[in-house]
């Protein structure tokens, strides 16, 4: 029997069509004894890099191509050579970007290097006018096979057999239908058949397929011919950067040298031999790695947008520091350069720069303008399914209403993978009483089968690729909704393919700093220069950090971080850098030990050889470079291997690679005389860097921003807090920040039609709610109001406001509810009467100029008593989405009077004086962090606040199981439990919780 290769295969990378992962397809192909396998996803090469690398593990030669589909035409294109790759990228890019795209025309133009297989008659007839070389007629069982065969005979084209594989195994057909229904926003019963593949489109063995081709056996053998012809050796770095190309970026080494020297003068004043030596060391590496243009590109951007924070390992570069890309002195803070660049490192280093979140688009615009959209594109994210989204989408197909879906999904953390749905629902206490009747079991069964299925592409938060020539010839490019070109590969595949990328990231806190500096300048005329500003030695700043009083401050405001800082009792920069690095997901076990060693001075590194490396971090591995160094010192890893281990720890698909490193590490460490227990302990420490972790340079860079925000909080609290709320997106809600303002002794004022501006504003000791907080009012109407107010002055009274602005009646009612017109001293119901009276007259074109008449009419309005306080607060909450006039707990004075409560402000005093005291506390839930114990039981650290202060409470597994279902931010709680001090920080270990109302 002839051999056969599947040439038409879709994986999960065919958006909302293919159901099997590339691994599952390769596994099945291997079991069928296939030597080649093609991956031809719909209109894309979305998984090309991964498929090629996975195919190596299965000993299968990978063919790449794509199924090109438009509304009326379709064809399969397989890559024969480099030219074909470039042409396919061009066709795919045009397919996504060009609204007038014609597949026939594209193939006529870019056919070189491609094998074209199709059963689309007009397309084949047209292409036959040219060469018949590499042109085939596609014969698939169930797809008008006989018509295709007769067409092949008529056009004298060789037939080729495919099974249009959409899944590895036939039962996955139902999943395919489900994906199509999700994609088309319809129900299973209304799915048009034209949108589905056949139920028989699985990866079938030759024996099953052969009987379909008894009358055309050459169709089977032709698959082999094509497989032999096509490209199966893939070197992506070479494909993407063909040798001999000049760098994509402008600028040269000499220019870099000049700018660095000038920067060194500016930064250091006098260039010391140490600085000189470090600069030259970096120059050597930069020159050898041809990275000068890369540095100069970043420098060009930051020169135009100076409020930045160079983050990541690049902060260890003195060149970046001198160029103004980063702001932490790598010499003073002993930052390890090799983590950023070294000559052994094969993958390209990244320079990641944070910009104020609202300037990021401008920065991108500049890059796209300077290097042109032809050569520039952004990295994409592959949007796939996690547990929540999988359940939501499947349930929508089954017609379940949103509220009912939310009842299930709100009990599932956003981190849970789709495959883990059943385990989560079975074991998590939040789901204990979730009795799900049909069709829910079916929905969950299907949802748990979704996972890596590509839904769509979105923009990566900052990765920008710049190419020396048209990017469309190198990678397929699509266009995002915002109109930005983006490549079809996500970050991991881009890195694997050896692409250089710039990371332009948005950061809210930089915008907070920028806005606060502007406010300070406006309010007091004080100028603080961002680049030269050094708050590290400021006493008030250090004091706030020492006390963990960092609510609202960048990177230090989470409850865990505030507690850690308060336990450390250190305000210096070095310790801040340590703290911001040890706070990471997998390092919980080491944090307590770190504090113990810091406060008691006791403790030693896990091995004497590590003494020097881990000295500054009290013998505990804290920074990413510690992993590399430990692996090098204890297990004889090379620097590049150590780096690879570090990178593997943070990857998604890491199991196989990590196991290999584990064995190597254990073997190497044993050879150096370490005993098993010792090695296991050190390996555990290495694993604590799973998920994400930081290098010292990054932590130092971020800590500097932290210091700047803490400085502002210490010296300009009103301005700072106003900017924190205005820039949104902080760790807490606006309501929680307003409570913090109260705790800081600031006065909060409601929006004022003559005094408020769009964002929150702060001056001296008052914070005024900005118009931005008012819900449901058009931004454009605000802009017109502010323009009118600045041009013609404040509004004299309500009628004056009505006459000069362009709000709709519903919007003005919201403004009334928000308290914008309380300054006019009229009851709010009267304002509503006036509003409608005015609108009525306006609609009838009655003269507004006749003030006497209007006033007379206003006099005559029905008596309108003022609303009761309770209703006013209700309206305020509806209009602003929060309570600004008072703390939410103040709504329950009666209930609070009834029982004795320990005020939050007293918790540390009482808890430190009498540890273990049983108390009762009241409070609103502010935030929570769900974690698992080492036995896998869920528990939660929650933060509550009453009108006097904020406190942290721990719900251990047993308590959490009992009360997790009642935890909400909308109702006040009464908590009973024990006060437990830990290095001076007191938390409440909760035993009982109930609602106060």
């Amino acid at each position, binding site marked *: 029997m002839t051999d056969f290769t599947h040439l038409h295969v879709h994986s999960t990378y065919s958006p909302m069509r293919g159901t099997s992962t590339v691994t599952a397809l390769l596994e099945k192909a291997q079991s069928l004894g296939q030597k080649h396998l093609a991956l031809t996803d719909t209109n894309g090469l979305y998984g090309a890099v991964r498929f090629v690398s996975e195919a190596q593990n299965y000993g299968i030669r990978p063919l790449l191509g794509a199924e090109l589909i438009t509304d009326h035409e379709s064809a399969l294109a397989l890559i024969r050579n480099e030219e074909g790759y470039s042409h396919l990228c061009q066709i795919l890019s045009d397919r996504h970007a060009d609204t007038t795209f014609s597949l026939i025309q594209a193939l006529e133009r870019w056919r070189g290097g491609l094998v074209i297989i199709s059963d689309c008659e007009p397309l084949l007839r047209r292409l036959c006018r040219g060469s018949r070389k590499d042109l085939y007629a596609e014969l698939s069982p169930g797809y008008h096979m006989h018509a295709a065969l007769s067409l092949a005979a008529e056009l004298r084209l060789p037939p080729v057999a495919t099974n249009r594989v959409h899944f590895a195994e036939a039962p996955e057909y139902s999943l395919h239908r489900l994906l199509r229904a999700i994609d088309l926003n319809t129900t299973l019963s209304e799915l048009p*058949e034209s949108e589905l593949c056949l139920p028989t489109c699985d990866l079938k063995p030759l024996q099953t397929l052969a009987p379909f081709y008894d009358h055309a056996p050459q169709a089977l053998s032709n698959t082999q011919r094509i497989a032999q012809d096509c490209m199966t050796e893939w070197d992506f770095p070479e494909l993407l950067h063909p040798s001999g190309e000049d760098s994509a970026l402008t600028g040269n080494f000499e220019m870099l040298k000049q700018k660095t020297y000038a920067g060194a003068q500016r930064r250091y004043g006098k260039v010391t031999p140490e600085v000189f030596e470090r600069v030259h060391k970096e120059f050597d590496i930069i020159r050898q790695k041809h990275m000068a243009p890369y540095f100069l590109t970043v420098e060009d951007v930051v020169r135009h947008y100076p409020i930045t924070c160079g983050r990541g390992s690049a902060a260890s570069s003195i060149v970046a520091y001198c160029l103004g890309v980063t702001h932490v002195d790598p010499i003073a803070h002993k930052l390890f350069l090799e983590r950023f660049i070294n000559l052994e490192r094969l993958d390209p280093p990244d320079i990641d720069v944070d910009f104020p979140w609202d300037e990021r688009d401008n920065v991108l615009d500049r890059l796209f303008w300077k290097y042109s959209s032809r050569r520039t594109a952004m990295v994409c994210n592959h949007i796939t399914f996690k547990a929540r989204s999988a359940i939501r989408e499947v349930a929508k197909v089954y*017609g379940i209403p949103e509220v009912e879906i939310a009842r299930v999904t709100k009990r599932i953390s956003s981190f849970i993978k789709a495959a883990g749905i059943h385990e989560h629902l079975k074991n998590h206490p939040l789901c204990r009483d979730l009795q799900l009747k049909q069709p829910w079991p079916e929905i969950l069964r299907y949802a748990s089968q979704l996972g890596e299925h590509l839904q769509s592409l979105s923009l990566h938060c900052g990765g920008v690729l710049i190419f020396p020539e048209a990017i469309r010839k190198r990678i397929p490019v699509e266009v995002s909704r915002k109109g930005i070109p983006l490549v079809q590969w996500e970050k991991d595949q881009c890195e694997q393919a050896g692409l250089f990328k710039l990371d332009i990231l948005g950061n809210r806190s930089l915008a907070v700093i920028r806005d606060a500096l502007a406010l300070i300048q406006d309010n007091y005329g004080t100028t603080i220069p961002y680049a030269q500003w050094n708050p590290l030695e400021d006493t008030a700043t250090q004091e706030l950090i020492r006390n963990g009083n960092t609510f609202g401050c960048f990177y230090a405001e989470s409850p865990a971080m505030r507690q850690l800082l308060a336990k450390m009792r250190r305000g210096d920069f070095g310790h801040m850098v340590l703290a911001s690095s040890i706070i990471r997901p997998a390092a919980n076990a080491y944090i307590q030990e770190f504090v113990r060693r810091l406060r008691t001075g006791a403790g030693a590194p896990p091995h004497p050889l590590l003494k020097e490396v881990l000295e500054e971090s009290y013998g505990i591995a804290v920074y990413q470079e510690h992993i590399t160094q430990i692996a090098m010192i204890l297990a004889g890893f090379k620097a590049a291997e150590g780096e690879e281990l570090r990178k593997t720890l943070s990857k998604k698909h890491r199991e196989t690679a990590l196991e290999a490193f584990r064995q190597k590490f254990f073997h190497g460490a044993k050879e150096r005389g370490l005993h098993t227990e010792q090695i296991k302990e050190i390996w555990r420490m290495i694993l604590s860097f799973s998920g994400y972790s930081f290098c010292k340079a990054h932590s130092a860079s971020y800590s500097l921003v932290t210091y700047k925000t803490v400085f502002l909080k210490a010296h300009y609290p009103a301005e700072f807090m106003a900017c924190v709320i205005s820039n949104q997106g902080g760790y807490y809600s606006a309501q929680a920040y307003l409570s913090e303002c109260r705790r800081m002794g600031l006065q909060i004022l409601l929006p004022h039609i003559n005094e408020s501006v769009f964002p929150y504003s702060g001056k001296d000791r008052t914070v005024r709610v900005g118009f931005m907080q008012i819900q449901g009012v058009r931004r454009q109407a605000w802009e017109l109001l502010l323009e009118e107010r600045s041009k013609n002055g404040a509004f004299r009274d309500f009628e004056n406001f009505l006459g000069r602005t362009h709000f709709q009646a519903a919007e003005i009612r919201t403004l009334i509810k928000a308290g914008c017109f309380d300054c006019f001293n009229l009851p709010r119901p009267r304002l509503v009467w006036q509003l409608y009276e005015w609108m009525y007259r306006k609609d009838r074109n009655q003269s507004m100029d006749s003030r006497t008449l209007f006033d007379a009419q206003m006099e005559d309005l029905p008596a309108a008593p003022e609303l009761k306080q309770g209703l006013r607060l209700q309206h305020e909450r509806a209009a602003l989405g929060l309570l600004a006039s008072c703390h939410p707990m103040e709504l329950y004075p009666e209930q609070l009077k009834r029982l004795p409560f320990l005020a939050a402000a007293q918790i540390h005093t009482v808890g430190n004086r009498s540890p273990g005291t049983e108390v009762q506390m009241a409070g609103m839930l502010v935030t929570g962090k769900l974690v698992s114990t080492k036995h896998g039981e869920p528990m939660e650290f929650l933060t509550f606040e009453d009108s006097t202060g904020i406190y942290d409470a721990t719900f251990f597994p047993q308590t959490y199981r009992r009360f997790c279902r009642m935890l909400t931010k909308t109702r006040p709680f009464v908590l009973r439990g024990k006060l437990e001090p830990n290095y001076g920080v007191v938390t409440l270990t909760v035993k009982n919780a109930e609602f106060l109302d």
Partner: protein
Amino acid sequence: MIRSIVHLKIPHFYVQAECLQNPRLRQRPVVISPLSAERAVILAVSPQAASWGIRKGMLLAQATKICPDLKVLPPTPQLYQKLSERLLQRAHRITPITEPTRPGRLFLDLTGTQGLWGPPQDAAWKFHKELRSDWGLFGAFGIAGNKLVSRIASQVSPPLKQELVQVPEGEEAAFLSPWPVSLLPTIKQHHFEELIEELNLQRIRQVACIQTQRLRTVFGPSADRLRRESHGIDHTAVHLQDQMEALTQEHHFKNDTNDWERLTLQVCQLVRDAARQLRLKNRACQRVRLFLRYTDMQEAQNTQPMAYPSFWDTEIEPRALEALKRARKRRTRIRYMALSLEALKRIGDVGATAAVSSLDHCKDGMDLEKRQKITRALDKIRERFGEGVADYASTHRHPGRTSRHPARSEGIFAEQRSPRRSAPRDDGLSSVRNDGACSTP
């Protein structure tokens, strides 16, 4: 002549009807909901169950979790239908002018019956006493000079101490004055609740003392009606059942569904039942309205005009299906649907030929006489042997939905996609109403 309108309101009508069958249920929390359905929702709630926070439309599973002692009864439409008919018959003993609005709600026009039954309050009182002592039903009676005030009077009667509230002629405004503004129908119909709260208008008297001109600035065209209502003025007549302008056939799905085939089959079923009613009453409809309520209580509807008045299933069905297609814009499951055949004309009014001549257009080529005969014969069979014993094949499988690939029906939902051989009616609650309104119990 002084009008005397009585409004009878039997709260928790379905539950009370069930309690008549089983009086031991009176003190227990009771709900009515299909028992065997996986996704059953609650159709009616007893006051005891309501005190547990159980509400109409809630999922049954959720309600039983809140109140473990909950007694769940399956709906028995025949019982409610029978009780409604008995109530109507009893009302007809006093006056022929009655208007049932919803199950357990009834207007009686007692104007001019004083000579026969004495003062209207006596007749109402007698009815009230009979309901309570002989029937065991608790009902509230409102007596006033118009429908609006009599209805509000029956509404404000304290629950479970259902009494008779009479508003003497000329005292309508004074009676209404202390009650909340939200009782006025205009407020609810036009969603003015938020506005009256912002204007701090709490009692009806506050609205009554505002000039119409002022009200107009805020409430627009509804101002006149609002002012009339606040003064207790309502001139609408009690509509006789015989004067009906629409016929409504409704269906509660036992298990909500978004399966297209099930929905279309149910529409066909409703058309069949409603058209038969039309033929019985010798009416033809000129308009078809389909009302849908999704599981999340959102509503949608669509109206399709008929080319000419008709009472034939085959002509109404395409319009009803078109209305379904247009009304259904979401994929959320549907819990309830109501088909209203509107703008009814007596066959005599429009001319018998107009109503039936359309049969000439039958696509299947069947002649007028033959089709007429078959439909009439079907009507007779149903009358004699019950619903569902014989039907058109087309109401059982929707045309044009055959699967090109047989294997497709083996996928998920194969059960729902397979052609049905038995009648499509799910065991939900179906009923017919004569008012044309699409509100449901």
